[in-house]
């Protein structure tokens, strides 16, 4: 095992939205930050940043104004993690986060007090708080029901322009679609390869040439999100210039390119802020030293290393992120073995209907924290003075039904950092 004699101010465990946000906020405070974590939710992200959209979930009530929705959810579900933050803190956190993304070339757009509607790859309409700028024209086109052509490609599976047109045709009659051959592409196409190819202006020109005969009477051109990896806005702008149309992207089915784009931003941006990242490595063990500091074992085999930190933020997510583990009889938190608030027995974890509007009881399971976001032990006291938790691992929310995933991750990460600075 490699020993790392550095002592970090804070160890961020997790590399999803919450982990990335925590590392960002902590380093911005001048802390010496180390971060670990395997592929988090970010890799399966659509790239949208939800803040709060639906409450009460059993009624499927959708909110235009996320702030009013947050007020309502805090009133009705006082244990919801948003209840630990003020509205100003939530706004500040999301704003700081998206400003960082913009500085790194991934600009986000949205209103202050209004959710934005966007078309999903399934053809449903989703409300979200911030959309990548490359998707913004799509929201405008949808809002105006403008004449729009969705372009899709032979060989790119999981994205059907016809599906979008069919599901929207009664609401958006001037939406149409065309399937073209991707320049130089044959057989199965992968979003990441297409994105690389589209960095080449001649590929862009060939593609637009193939599209234009079908785009005579449209104002907008919509594409699956394959328009460049590192600087998609540049590709979008060039395609707009070539076509004379407003151009936008629609996320593809996860894992889409939105994940790699976000990850690339953090891979570039966090080290420049001094964050030491051990990406794709998991914490395998933790010891509390006499000083109260944590000593983590990170990774396995020859690459195993030891990391010492004064404080830690647990942002390991839920089951997909491996922050929570389901054994046959109970749910456990594998890193610190923290108590997990959960339904009594596995029989109560899930309902009989997958799409039941009220969601599944297990979705509200998770780690309970005090008002300073410190996980609590079985007796209801902070398990450690210097351990904080953020993101989806927290109990008492259903981010999937409430549409609060990214917002909750970013805001609680912000709050956790703020508390550990005290």
């Amino acid at each position, binding site marked *: 095992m490699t020993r790392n004699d550095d002592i970090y101010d804070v160890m961020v465990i997790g590399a999803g939205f919450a982990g990335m946000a925590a590392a960002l906020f902590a380093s911005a405070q001048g802390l010496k930050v180390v971060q670990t974590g395997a592929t988090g*939710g970010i890799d*399966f*992200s659509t790239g*949208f940043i939800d803040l709060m959209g639906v409450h009460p979930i059993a009624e*499927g009530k*959708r909110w*235009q*104004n996320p702030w009013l929705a947050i007020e309502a959810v805090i009133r009705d579900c006082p244990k919801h993690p948003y209840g630990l933050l003020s509205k100003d803190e939530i706004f500040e956190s999301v704003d700081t986060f998206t400003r960082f993304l913009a500085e790194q070339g991934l600009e986000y757009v949205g209103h202050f007090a209004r959710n934005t*509607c966007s078309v*999903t*790859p*399934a*053809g*449903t*309409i*989703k*409300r979200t708080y911030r959309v990548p700028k490359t998707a913004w024209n799509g929201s405008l086109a949808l*809002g105006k029901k403008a004449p729009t052509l969705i372009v899709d490609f*032979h*060989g790119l*599976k*999981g*994205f*059907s322009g*016809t*599906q979008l047109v*069919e*599901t929207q045709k009664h609401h958006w009659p001037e939406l149409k679609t065309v*399937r073209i051959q991707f320049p130089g592409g*044959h*057989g*199965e196409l992968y979003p990441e390869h297409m994105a690389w190819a589209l960095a080449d202006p001649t590929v862009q020109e060939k593609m637009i040439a193939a599209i234009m005969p079908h785009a005579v009477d449209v104002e907008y051109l919509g594409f699956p999100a394959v328009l460049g990896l590192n600087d998609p806005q540049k590709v979008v702008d060039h395609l707009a210039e070539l076509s004379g149309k407003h151009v936008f992207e629609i*996320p593809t*089915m*996860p894992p889409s390119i939105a994940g790699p784009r976000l990850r690339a931003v953090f891979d570039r941006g966090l080290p420049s802020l001094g964050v030491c990242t051990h990406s794709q490595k998991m914490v395998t063990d933790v010891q509390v030293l006499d000083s109260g500091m944590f000593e983590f074992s990170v990774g396995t085999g020859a690459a195993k290393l030891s990391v010492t930190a004064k404080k830690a933020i647990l942002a390991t997510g*839920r*089951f*997909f992120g*491996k922050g929570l*583990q*389901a*054994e*046959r009889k109970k749910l456990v938190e594998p890193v610190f073995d923290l108590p997990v608030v959960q339904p009594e027995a*596995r*029989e109560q*974890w*899930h309902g*009989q*209907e*997958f*799409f*039941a*509007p009220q*969601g*599944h009881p297990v*979705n509200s399971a998770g780690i309970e924290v005090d008002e300073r976001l410190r996980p609590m032990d079985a007796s209801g006291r902070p398990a450690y003075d210097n351990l904080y938790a953020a993101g989806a691992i927290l109990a008492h929310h259903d*981010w*999937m*039904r409430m*549409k609060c995933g990214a917002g909750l991750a970013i805001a609680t990460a912000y709050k956790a950092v703020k508390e550990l600075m005290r």
Partner: protein
Amino acid sequence: MNESFFVVCCNRSEGAVKVKTLQTRVLIVGGGATGTGLARDLALRGVPCLLAERRDINAGASGGNHGLLHSGARYVASDMEAAVECREEGAILKAVAPQCIEDTGGLFVAVQGDDEQYVADFEGMCKKSRIPARQLDLGEARELEPLLSDKLISAYAVEDAAIDPFMLSLDNMAHALALGAQSIRNAKVIGFSMGNGRIQRALFLDETSGESFEVEAEIVVNATGAWAGIVAALAGADIHILYSSGSLLVTQDRLTKRVVNRLRKASDSDILVPGGTVSVLGTTSVTIDSPDDCRPTVAETDRIIEDAQAMIPILATTRYIRAYAGVRPLVLLGESGDARSVSRGFSLIDHARDNVDNFITITGGKLTTFRLMAEKTADMVCNKLGVTAPCVTRTEPLPASTMGRWTEPGLAPKSWVRNRDEADLILCECEMVSRNSIDSIIENMPGMRGNSMLKAIGLRSRVGKGPCQGGFCGLRITGHLYDQGHVSDEQGLTELKTFVGRRWRGFSPVLWGLPMVQADLQEALYCGALDMELDHNTDDFTCEDDE
């Protein structure tokens, strides 16, 4: 040969409403193993028939069982007649329908704590029923199947095999259709018009179109398995059936080469059957009030695992990818209440006994004896019709069909590799089912898609059966169905939800370990990202400002 919807068709005035009337000689209600087997048997004898199935092929117990072709050894103690039937039928099916069968062989094993008297009597009982059973020494048994417990006390080799019930029924149906029989799916029988001690007409509801239609037939056969009592009651006939729900678990990997049975008096969690790339473990026996209530539960899942690990310890920790359940139709002959003590033999009832001359019910029995059940039923039908043609299904090979072939694990990927067509994308990545395979499946099921074409594709292929349980392939195939014009408007999304909802029944009981991770991802995708749980047709859903 395609399934065809149109039979002899005419219009009959029913009050003010015109109801389509179909005519046939024999109406078979129920498209499980027995119904499809009967359709083929009658067709081979030259008797025109129409098979009407409420949902889809093998929607009941025929699709909710182990897929085990019994050697008969399981029944030597409890039901010698059934044991002998299994032995004979097993041999016939291995000869006439080899494409549906993997002749794995089977083991019977006992472990410490099992009833030693039963073990001691086993060989003798097998001899009595002339069922081959060869005693193995324990080392040999564990060499054959290394995952067996080290607490074995006895082991026998028998002639069990694995059978693909979907391929079997689809092949039977395809052969029947090729010989001139007809079929309708998603057609629920809702009543019979009676007159002169006969069923004059059967009234159906087409659950795809929502329209009703009628069938006029000389003979009506009720082959609805667990629903036989409900259907018989529509004709005023009485059958008492005990509904015994049995749950089974599917493992991620194939754990054994052979069928492994627990050598003890028939009980829960006794049998592990390999099927292609997986193994199927079960089963339970829980009495339920209605056959429509049948679904696998968390409690049964846990019980199966806890019980079966004595036989094969790795069953405690292996990954399960889903559960499923079927209802055994156990016909109550006397006052007995316990499901396992009721005969597993079949019941063939001539409802002349209930003063309905042209109505026959065939129910009970087991998958292994479906052919015999069909033969005996067809004999009764032919007797009533005055048809003298003999049964030929004992020797006539069952042709492999394009309808049934895609249920075979490994076929889709082989075909994809063989045909290596650049444009042929893999839509189901877990089971490697490509676009061309999907198109071939769709080609063979025009119309009669029921409430979800995706679900119908799933039944006819490996789609949705891998670790993702339809989460990803469902979305990809839906896109393809839109591209091909098979669905329009929001129908594709609605059908996708139906498909995912249906897979959930089997998925939700096994959610711990990696399947829980998969379910978390699936919900994040369908609900978190795509908002598919929300109603997208409501008027209050606008994208305008509300401030």
